[in-house]
């Protein structure tokens, strides 16, 4: 029984990472109809930026927030400079541009920081916590807490602030948004900034366990894709739920279904994506998009 609870908590912890990344993917998709294939690599690069700040002597939380701010700015710049020229281009062009970004960030990280793995600190205590006889890792609980705080802030931002409202409007109906005076282009850039900031948080949370190297986020990203697909690319709530579900299922399947173990995890994610796309492409909570002929 203790194993089960531990695995569920572990699953929620990794699930919180998937939730953050999936939410970032969905936010960008809702606003721009773009799936940012470079999401994971941008998150990885942001984590390296944090590592640089930590190495320069900055205390952890100062470096954390500085990195989030830098990632935000980076996301805004990328949308305005790299994505904007292909905003209305065919799907293939956008896929290629985001793939190009993926490759650039991955190689930049390798170039600047080399490919050797680096340890990354966790801000949470090393001793595990004992809750009702079950031993839980402090870092995992910390991951869940940080993610929930971030999600709560974002929810509040979108729901209660005028800027959040304007961003929602710009994503849902750009034409009408212009007609009320919203600068839609900048709203999109802000969306990318926020998504990049989420990615940075996810990267910094996951780096202590996975160790920092340029290919750190590849496996995480496939699960984020699976989570967004499962929840529905048009539903932020779905993305978050999808993340937690995928995290828990991944852990339970890995523990209890022996022939899958840890070696076939990516295949499980792949199978999940394909099955969902075939059976219910809009995901559990997404809107079905009707194509006009």
């Amino acid at each position, binding site marked *: 029984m203790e194993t089960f609870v531990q695995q569920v908590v572990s699953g929620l912890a990794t699930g919180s990472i998937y939730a953050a990344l999936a939410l970032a993917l969905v936010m960008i998709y809702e606003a721009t109809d773009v799936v940012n294939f470079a999401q994971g690599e941008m998150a990885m690069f942001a984590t390296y930026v944090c590592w640089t700040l930590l190495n320069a002597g900055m205390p952890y939380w100062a470096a954390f927030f500085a990195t989030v701010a830098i990632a935000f700015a980076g996301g805004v710049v990328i949308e305005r400079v790299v994505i904007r020229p292909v905003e209305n281009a065919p799907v293939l062009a956008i896929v290629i541009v985001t793939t190009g970004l993926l490759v650039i960030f991955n190689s930049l990280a390798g170039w600047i920081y080399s490919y050797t793995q680096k340890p990354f600190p966790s801000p949470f205590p090393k001793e595990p916590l004992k809750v009702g006889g079950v031993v839980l890792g402090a870092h995992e609980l910390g991951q869940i807490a940080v993610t929930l705080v971030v999600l709560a802030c974002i929810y509040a931002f979108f729901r209660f602030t*005028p800027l959040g*409202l*304007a961003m*929602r*409007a710009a994503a*849902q*109906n750009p*034409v*009408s*948004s*212009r*007609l*009320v*005076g*919203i*600068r*839609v282009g900048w709203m999109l850039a802000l969306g990318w900034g926020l998504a990049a900031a989420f990615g940075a948080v996810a990267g910094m949370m996951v780096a202590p366990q996975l160790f920092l190297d340029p290919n750190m986020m590849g496996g995480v990203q496939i699960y984020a894709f699976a989570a967004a697909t499962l929840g529905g690319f048009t539903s932020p709530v779905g993305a978050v739920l999808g993340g937690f579900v995928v995290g828990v299922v991944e852990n339970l399947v890995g523990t209890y279904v022996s022939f899958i173990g840890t070696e076939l995890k990516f295949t499980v994610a792949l199978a999940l994506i394909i099955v969902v796309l075939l059976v219910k492409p809009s995901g559990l909570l997404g809107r079905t998009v009707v194509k006009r002929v």
Partner: protein
Amino acid sequence: MTAPLLEVENLEAWYGRVKALHGVSFSMQAGGITTILGANGAGKTTTLRAISRMVKTAGSIRIDGRPVDSLATEDVVRLGVAHTPEGRGTFVQLTVEENLRLGSWGRGSKAGLEEDFERIYGWFPVLKERRHQAAGTLSGGEQQMLAVGRALMLKPRLMLLDEPSLGLAPLIVREIFRILRAANQEAGVSILLVEQNAALALDLADEVFLLETGRVVMHGPSSVLRADDAIRRSYLGY
């Protein structure tokens, strides 16, 4: 002498390669209500879209004497021009209140926002009842009221209205037009109204322009056009 609120000279407009306006000219003074009439495809909607910079144009458009040809849609809005498009353009997933709040986004000062909310709710009580409902769940008439309310939240100097009566019951249309007149008289909002329902439009407006295949074929005070039987019958069909 003050410049007219809106001055359009030799306006041409294209949808891709198709030319929709062939040199339209007219002007509006501040405080007035002008209506553009014409059959389907005459170019009425295109004229409004041209002013809002939503289509490619040639010729000159000035607001308060200032040329707006190089501005983007959102900049024209910030000059105080509220455009209620064909089909209303409501944010269907957002609530009534959120729609109204977004209407105020383009205005210079957010002072008096709560009073403006109350004023709009006073004019359209049904919107107050449904303020937390998703706008997409409202009826056609309620959505039109919401669209007009949203435009008024801008505290606009000029409202561009595209066929507000389309698909609505006569009672509701009369109510909306009553409020438009009130907004014009109490709040000094100038109105440029595009309508197919000529009778209603002539009732509200001071000045009329009649468009036919992208050209102005007739204009004058609405009282004159209303009184002239021959013109009414041949151009307006009643």
